[in-house]
């Protein structure tokens, strides 16, 4: 019941927030933001508590998928409502909850009009994402995969910047078409299961025991891979990302970069690698090439941008390239690197996008040409900016370094030459990171800006704190996600 309560609790509180926003009951004026914050905090701590109590009582410690719920849903097609968790999904769900709080906090002042509907969409997206991370029935997974897409598109289309409709449509079409390919692969898998066992099944655990001919598996794997590569995103299907990230409101960008991209990586690990081990091993050189291309291309493009958010968006492509490279290296060190990179990038890109939001709030521009010399008037912001830029280019001591280092070390055993090229990406990231910092905070002060408020300091310091903790003591994640990967 726990996961169901979390998912539907989010949806329900979203609806309540929408309906009661700006209405007065018994002398108290309800505001959607307070309600959503409370809901996210309550459900988040409820989730953590039940996980802890569960982990203590059971022997398995979530190293394998542990089923929480399985009830028939569409019984004519043997589709179940099945939710399960393991350490990988728990890590990502915790990240989702943390970023959910950040998202609500960064929207605090930014979203004034139609706030009720905004928070409804935000919470619905969280619910969809948590569903994606926990669904083990493939139809249900696909269902959540789409459910998180609709409110996200609405967030971009309603509260986004000047070019929002185009960005929203592009985002939606890219994801939708690629996920239809995945749906075809899912259905085909279900029928292969029927051929082999006589029973139609969409259940993930059933599929693991299937013996699929490599010829077909190759195509099926590709169906899944394309859907996840679009979400990740990897070159050449990345082009929705810079638009969507740039046009989305701050919380939208945080959400997109922080968790939505991770659903792609999660899908690659859970479905592509585990369901089609042989096919993905055959495919690995191509995937690794795409990953290295993403790393270099992302870094190069990031360097060429003059839009703060666009720069960070391209840097995301570069960072997610490391994740894909690591995932397709098939060894434990690389996997751990991939997971640390996922979490670290979630935090650092969320931090940079929040910072972009704070700057936009002050000068109403995202262009780097309108920025400069902020250090003088806003030193605290500058300090955080420097730290976040350093995190993005992988300064030792911060989480990204650990992730990228492990990914590269792991991948080197398999693709030595590609890793050499990928490592060049690190230099690229140092360049664009410094460009970002210098253009924003150094140089001639154009106009004075207000320094960070207490709310903003809370956002920045919690993100930075986590980055440092994970950077100095990555065992928190490494220790936990160990079991998934064997």
């Amino acid at each position, binding site marked *: 019941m726990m996961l169901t309560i979390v998912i539907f609790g989010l949806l329900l509180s979203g609806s309540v927030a929408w309906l009661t926003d700006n209405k007065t009951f018994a002398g108290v004026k309800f505001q959607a933001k307070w309600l959503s914050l409370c809901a996210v905090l309550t459900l988040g701590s409820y989730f953590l508590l039940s996980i802890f109590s569960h982990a203590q009582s059971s022997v398995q410690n979530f190293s394998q998928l542990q089923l929480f719920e399985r009830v028939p849903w569409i019984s*004519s097609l043997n589709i179940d409502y099945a939710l399960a968790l393991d350490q990988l999904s728990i890590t990502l769900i915790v990240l989702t909850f943390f970023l959910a709080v950040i998202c609500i906090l960064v929207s605090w002042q930014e979203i004034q009009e139609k706030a009720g509907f905004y928070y409804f969409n935000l919470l619905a997206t969280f619910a969809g994402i948590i569903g994606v991370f926990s669904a083990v029935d493939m139809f249900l997974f696909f269902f959540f995969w789409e459910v998180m897409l*609709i409110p996200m598109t609405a967030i971009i289309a309603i509260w986004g910047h000047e070019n929002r409709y185009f960005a929203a449509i592009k985002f939606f*079409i890219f994801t939708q*078409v690629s996920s*239809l390919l995945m749906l075809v692969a899912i259905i085909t898998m279900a029928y292969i299961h029927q051929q082999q066992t006589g029973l139609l099944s969409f259940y993930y655990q059933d599929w693991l025991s299937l013996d699929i001919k490599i010829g077909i598996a190759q195509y099926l794997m590709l169906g899944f891979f394309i859907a996840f590569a679009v979400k990740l995103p990897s070159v050449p299907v990345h082009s929705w990302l810079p638009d969507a990230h740039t046009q989305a409101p701050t919380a939208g960008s945080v959400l997109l970069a922080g968790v939505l991209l991770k659903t792609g990586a999660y899908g690659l690990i859970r479905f592509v690698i585990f369901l089609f081990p042989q096919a993905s091993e055959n495919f690995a050189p191509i995937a690794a090439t795409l990953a290295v291309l993403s790393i270099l291309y992302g870094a190069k493009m990031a360097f060429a941008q003059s839009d703060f958010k666009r720069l960070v968006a391209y840097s995301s492509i570069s960072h997610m390239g490391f994740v894909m490279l690591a995932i397709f290296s098939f060894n434990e060190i690389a996997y751990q690197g991939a997971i640390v990179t996922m979490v670290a990038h979630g935090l650092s890109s969320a931090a940079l996008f929040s910072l972009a939001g704070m700057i936009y709030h002050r000068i109403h521009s995202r262009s780097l040409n309108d920025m400069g010399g902020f250090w003088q008037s806003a030193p605290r912001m500058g300090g955080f900016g420097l730290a976040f830029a350093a995190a993005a280019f992988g300064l030792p001591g911060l989480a990204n370094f650990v992730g990228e280092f492990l990914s590269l070390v792991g991948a080197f055993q398999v693709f030595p030459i590609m890793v050499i090229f990928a490592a060049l990406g690190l230099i690229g990231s140092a360049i664009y990171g410094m460009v970002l910092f210098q253009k924003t905070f150094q140089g001639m002060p154009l106009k004075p800006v207000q320094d960070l408020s207490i709310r903003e300091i809370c956002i920045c310091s919690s993100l930075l704190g986590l980055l440092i903790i994970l950077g100095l003591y990555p065992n928190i994640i490494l220790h936990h996600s160990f079991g998934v990967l064997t």
Partner: protein
Amino acid sequence: MTPIDNIVEVTVFTTEMFIVLSPILLLSFGIVLSLLLIAWQRSQKMIAVFSQAILTFTLLLSLHLLSGSLLTGDGVQITTLLKVDHFSYISLSLICLSALAVVGLSGQVLKSEIEVHDEYYLLILLVTLGASILVVSDHFASLFLGFELLSISLVGLVGYFREQKYAVETGFKYLILSASASSFMLLGIAFIYSQTGNLSFAVNSAAVSWSPNSLQLFNSIGILLFFSGIAFKLSLAPFHFWTPDVYQGAPTPITLLMATVSKVAMFTVLMKCCFAQGYFNNEHFVDVILVIALLSMFIGNTLALKQQNIKRLMAYSSIAHFGYLLIVLVISSEQNIDFAWRSALFYLSAYILANVSIFTIVILHENRILQNSAEREISIGDWQSMFWYRRTEAVLLMLSILSLAGIPLTMGFIGKFYLLNQAVISQSWWLISGLVIGSGIGLAYYLPLIFTMLKSSENSIVENESPSDTFVKSPPLFITILIIISFYFGIFPDSLSQYIM
């Protein structure tokens, strides 16, 4: 010869047949009664209520028979002409439901005129009768009978508001094209008859062998011509040219009638015929279906991209949707027929629900905004920022559009899921890629519709909000019910699909 023996055997009309056929008999009887009613007193209100009552009873009766145990296995054969099975009842229920919606919505359109519109309702009932004959027909003759009854009554309805700008053009276009379509179909039937010597669906499959044969060509041409007649009605590419003009020019409830009743009936009979005759075994026929399906998906979706008029947009989107639906005709073996029926009927239900919802809003909107102007046309721009001042209607509209686009939480997605299942079983990868690409293009016009509704109200038409609105009390409730239905069946499709099986 066996066919003749068959005929002699089944001409006895038993009580069982009477009961099985009772919904259609009730409908016909109701039409006669309403003629008498008109002779007795001409009152629009009365005839509207009476037609609604007839349709409701027909619906209830067919639902009752559907859940009853009368139908076993293959269904009941009633003379050689008709055969009632499980699926006919479902189609019949769908037809009655959409006809009910049309009759209900017509009240919104007709009230502004001075005349008494008895014949309008009568024609709708006749269209419904034609459609119900189609769904139970098991013989080319009864098919043609139903087809003609449907078309001729529709011609009358399409040009009904003769004062309006496009009425005459629309009526003529529909009349001429429809007549030529039925003549093609008749020729096709004649060709088929020349080869098989029998017009029954079931007998043909036994008589015709697909082995190469010197006169095989006639049969193929016959099937092709027959199919083109039906394709015209279903507005499949390349027989789609009338669709946007007629959709736009016809009174909106009649557009809905064409989009739902006529298409469901046509598709049902097409499926019946194809499956009974085993066309799916014929490679050439499958190729034709494949080409037409792909063309329809592509043309429908591409041409819808730049449409500003809602009715035209719906016309093009319907072309694409019936292109998708053709997937169910391409089945690999007899065992899949049941699943094909289930997929098709579910998809059709979703399609009908979405269409009824969208046209309901269009009609309400036409009434509200364009009351004074002569032109009754709604363009996408009229829906701007609707979400912020007319929440319920906008939510229904969004749900229906998402359903047409096939996004989860809606019935349309489950329908598309069924179609994909069907296509995977029959391994028709071309159709799958067509469906995927088509849906991708489709999003490019469905999403802007939704975004228009979400746009902020800078210079919107909020001033039209006034209590003096000609807003009848029933629509909001109707809209809420539609919303609930769309959500419910989108999330629990089993409650519907179990009914279909």
